[in-house]
Structure formats: structure tokens, C-alpha cells
């Protein structure tokens, strides 16, 4: 199997997951698709090095997060995403869902990335620092600040999530 075929096989298998992660970061499916495509392009260009890594999926995610943070400087990343029409579901879960997503969206991009890596991807502080190219002290301090901010934003019934 050629490098291109190997890459295509990996990308097909993980593109959806990468796009989901990208969506959590940017809250825009179309932008998430662009970010995913950019990340896959960079992964393709670094494929020979990537396949030597211990965890290819983590490597791809690392590229994705860096693509997202690079993108934060672009004007489009700060443009307000038009509201998405959501069909009403069960009232409680609807409120819960919107509250958490909105709260995350109100964090600065880098802090949002830290929270997602720490609490959704379950990365260690050191691994987050490696992915985002930050000192561990910054990761710790920003995590504390982000959680405090989320506590302020979230509804009372969700505060239990933070112990």
C-alpha cells in the first residue's frame, strides 16, 4: 500500500471525528469542515513523520488544534456564526445542551482548546501543553480561569459538573 493510500485510508476513518472536534472548537460545521481539510492536508504533507509517531490519531488532532489556533487570527474566526435553527427537543436537555455549548463558545479560542483537550479528550496537562505548544503553567492557570468562567456562565443545575 502506498503512502497516499495509507493516508487516504486513515483520513477516511478519522475525518468525521476530527470534524466533530473542530466543530466543538468553532461551533460552525462549515468552518469545522475547512479546518479538518486543512489539518488533513498538513497531515498528508507530514505523513512519513506522522506514521512514526506513537499515536497517529493524537498526531492528527495536534495538527487540527494548531490549525484552529492559527486560524484564530483570521477575521472569519471571530465573525458571529449565524444562529442555527434547532428543532425543540426535550426541554431540560435542550437547555443543558445550549448552555454548555454557549458557555464554551464564550471562552477565548485557546482556552476553549485547553478545556476540550483536558475534559473532552482527557489529555494530561503535559500533553495539552505539548499539543498547544504552551508551558504547563499556562495550561494549568488557563484551565483554572476557564473553569471559573464556565462556572459563572453555566446554569445552577450544571455546577455539579465541576464538583
Amino acid at each position, binding site marked *: 500500500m502506498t503512502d497516499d493510500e495509507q493516508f487516504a485510508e486513515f483520513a477516511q476513518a478519522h475525518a468525521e471525528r476530527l470534524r466533530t472536534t473542530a*466543530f466543538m472548537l468553532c461551533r460552525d460545521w*462549515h468552518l469545522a469542515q475547512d479546518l479538518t*481539510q486543512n489539518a*488533513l492536508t498538513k497531515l498528508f504533507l507530514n505523513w512519513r513523520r506522522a506514521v512514526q509517531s506513537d499515536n497517529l490519531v493524537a498526531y492528527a488532532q495536534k*495538527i487540527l488544534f494548531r490549525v484552529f489556533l492559527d486560524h484564530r487570527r*483570521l*477575521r472569519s474566526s471571530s465573525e458571529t456564526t449565524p444562529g442555527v435553527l434547532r428543532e425543540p427537543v426535550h426541554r431540560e436537555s435542550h437547555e443543558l445542551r445550549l448552555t454548555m455549548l454557549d458557555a464554551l463558545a464564550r471562552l477565548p479560542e485557546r482556552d476553549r482548546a485547553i478545556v476540550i483537550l483536558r475534559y473532552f479528550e482527557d489529555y494530561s496537562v503535559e500533553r495539552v501543553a505539548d499539543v498547544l505548544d504552551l*508551558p*504547563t503553567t499556562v495550561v494549568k492557570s488557563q484551565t483554572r480561569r476557564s473553569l471559573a468562567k464556565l462556572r459563572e456562565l453555566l446554569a445552577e443545575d450544571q455546577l455539579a459538573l465541576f464538583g
Partner: protein
Amino acid sequence: MTEDLRALLRAELNDERPPPLGDVVGAALRDGRRIQRRRRAGLVLAGSVGLVGFLLAGSVALVPGPRSDQLAAESVDELITPAAAPPEAPRAQAAAKAPVSPGSVPFGSAVPETLAPQRSLAIRSGTHDAAGTPTKATAGAMLYLLTKLLPAGAASKPATADTGPLSVEVILDRGAGPGTIRLELDQAATAGPRPARGDTATVTVADFPDDCTRSTTVTSRWPDGTTVRLEVGTCLALKSGDGPDGPPVLSQKEAILLASNPRWGLTMDPELVAVGDKQFGALPVPTP
């Protein structure tokens, strides 16, 4: 907590209705191959230019520097360090150590004018003895030093970030079009006692040809963890393609010398801090 948050996020994502994924893999493959072709063409061109430059330089003089001034290619980051990095980096001339003052910071290291697209090297910039007790760096001091270290040109719109590491930016126009220059200061954590600052910075240079807002990024890391990140843009537009894209406002050599200046740090000359805060006291926060 982690499990609860993860479960909540998963539940939210399950309620989303994403559009079809489309052919992102095919598009990534096509883009990747196109970039590869462009890189190969660039390498051929750069090789030709480099050969001519080498022959010209060799005909003038070749004075090997002392061992401590050797520029050594080092691996910094697995994503940044090129797989095809040159096995041996060029040598630099000895750094001339001289007293420094704001606005006249000497550089002794010889830095190659151009380098491969992604590369690392060690720059011996020397040490800097602060005049007085070093003071905690401020955005004002950073902007003051930055504007003093920049080459001649019109510097405007100084600004700083309101969160995160110390970060400043300024627009520079040297006559060929404006470009944004951003500089960020940080210090990485160390496992044991923090080592001395040292006199040699590991400098990583990376190009982003598709992003004119930061076409070249130079990251200078010192033994004590001090990290200086300099981004050189070739346009003012916050989105590539939205505005005119001119030549870089700093050459690679200028950017490397600026980022590896020993005066950058989380503590700086008290004089720099005082003058900088006075001159750039109330800095605006740039609108993204």
C-alpha cells in the same frame, strides 16, 4: 467531573445535525499534492540560488568562527523541525560584546540570509547585563524595545493583548507596503531549579505561505525557558486574500536577530520599562 462534562458534550453533539462530510479527504490529497509540487519547484530554485550564493560568498572570504559561535541545527519540535534539515548549519562570525543601551542593541551573530522552509538553529546572542535591578516586563517596555529594534520605517498602531502571555503588535511600513509584526513573551516551566539564562538561544523559523498575516514565525527559546515568538506578516488583512500582500516587512535574518535579542525576557531593564510604560502607557487591545 471529567466524565460528566464529556458525557454532556457527547450528548450535545449527538443532538447536532451536521451537514454531509463531503470529500474532505480527496480535497486534502489534492491540496497536499499541489503543495508538494510547489515545494519541489521551490527547492530546485532555492538550490540554484544557494549554489550561486555559496560560490559568491566563498570568493570573498570564509572565516570560521570560534566553537561557541557555531550555529548548530537542533531539533526543536517534531512538527517544525524539517525531516530534510541540513546536516550541518553554517558557521557564524564571533559575537562582538559591547555595552548596550535602549535603541542600540548590538548583534554579533552572523545569520544566514535565507534558510529552508522550516528549520532550527542555535544563535549565540550573548548575555545582557541590565542597568539596575531587572523589572517585570510590561507591554510598554516590549513595544518600546520592539520599535527600537525594528529597522527604519513607519511603525504605527501599537497594540497589546488583554489576556494570555505578554504580547504586542505593531504595523511596520518600510516603503514596500505595511505588514504586521507580533511579539509574544513567555517562560516555560522547568522540572528542577531554573537554569541560568545562558547566552545561546535555540531559534526555530517556520513559514506559513498561505497566511499572509504571519508569513514567517521565529521562536527563540533560551535555556531558562524564556520564549520569544515573533510573527512577521506580509499584509494587514486579518484574513489572507482580503488585502494586498506585499513583501515581508522583515527579512529572515532581521527577524531572527530581533527574536534572539538577549534583552527580551519576563524581566527587563528598568529603564526600558520606565520609558516604555511612559511612551506606551495605555495600549489598545487589537480587534481580531
